[in-house]
């Protein structure tokens, strides 16, 4: 048998090297793309969770403030909403119980993320946001406008809330707004 008739069935070294280089480039690009997309998605997912928590808290507080009613001694009628750095309280009309009862929001600032909870009358305290509150301020704004007659009052509660993810290094989700309790304001101005 002559050696020139031998059949060659494998790849040449050059072909293998070229294929390896192309595969490596392709894989590196795919992994990089996937990692970038995954990080972006994870960041957005964190934002979505924080946004949902802040939306639920603001909706709960807005509902309570819309049910807030004038109560207490008439001399103290402008102090319907009591706000301290760690506590917010006011009276609401509960249609379920058919009476006026207090609602209290508590904010506990903790090093690893603050906790926000709500309590109505003698019911148990319910946690609204756990370990995600980076900072929270609530401030009662009482305005008196010099309109004809005895003037017009308007009470608002300015909220500045920042939430952060438990483990993420991303910047906190921040929202600022003022809630105006319409029913309470109407009662104040029709006294």
């Amino acid at each position: 048998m002559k050696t020139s008739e031998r059949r060659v069935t494998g790849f040449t070294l050059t072909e293998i090297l070229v294929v390896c280089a192309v595969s490596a480039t392709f894989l590196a690009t795919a992994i990089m793309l996937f990692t970038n997309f995954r990080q972006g998605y994870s960041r957005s997912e964190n934002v979505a969770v924080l946004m949902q928590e802040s939306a639920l808290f603001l909706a709960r507080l807005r509902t309570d403030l819309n049910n807030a009613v004038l109560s207490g001694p008439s001399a103290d009628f402008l102090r319907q909403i009591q706000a301290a750095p760690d506590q917010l309280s006011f009276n609401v009309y509960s249609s379920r119980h058919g009476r006026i009862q207090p609602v209290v929001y508590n904010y506990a600032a903790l090093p690893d993320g603050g906790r926000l909870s709500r309590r109505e009358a003698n019911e148990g305290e319910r946690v609204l946001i756990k370990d995600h509150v980076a900072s929270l301020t609530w401030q009662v704004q009482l305005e008196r406008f010099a309109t004809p007659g005895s003037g017009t009052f308007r009470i608002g509660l300015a909220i500045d809330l920042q939430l952060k993810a438990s483990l993420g290094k991303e910047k906190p989700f921040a929202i600022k707004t003022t809630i105006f309790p319409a029913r309470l304001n109407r009662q104040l101005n029709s006294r």
Partner: protein
Amino acid sequence: MNRSHRTGLSLIEIVLSMGILSLIMLPVFMTFSSGNINIQVTESEFRAHTAALELMEQIISLPFKLIKAGEYDSGQIIEGRSFAGSPVIFRVSDNPDLKPALKIEEIKRENKVVFKKITVTIAYPSARASDRMRDFTLKTLVANEDI
């Protein structure tokens, strides 16, 4: 060397298969990307919704006679600016991306104003740093309690 008997894949075949694989993977990556965009849109909508409620509530908190009919745009709805030339002022939380607008119409019956229709529209960017604007609209009626 007789190449017709080789059984391995050629370079062209491998490159083509990688091209097909990339085309298949592309929609997977696009899914992540569109998910991110949707979350950004939801965040913009939430901010617009919060701003709309803030503007609506401060108007309906006023006595009926102080809710003056008219149209007010983002140039007039500014923190501390007078509302309809009255002593009442607008309160607007700082959010430069949002463009608020307010329309108040009187609804009359037998020559008396029985309702005021309040329409708040907030124009907001559809995504972060985007020029495309969307609108969020909130409407309500305030009844005249004096009649």
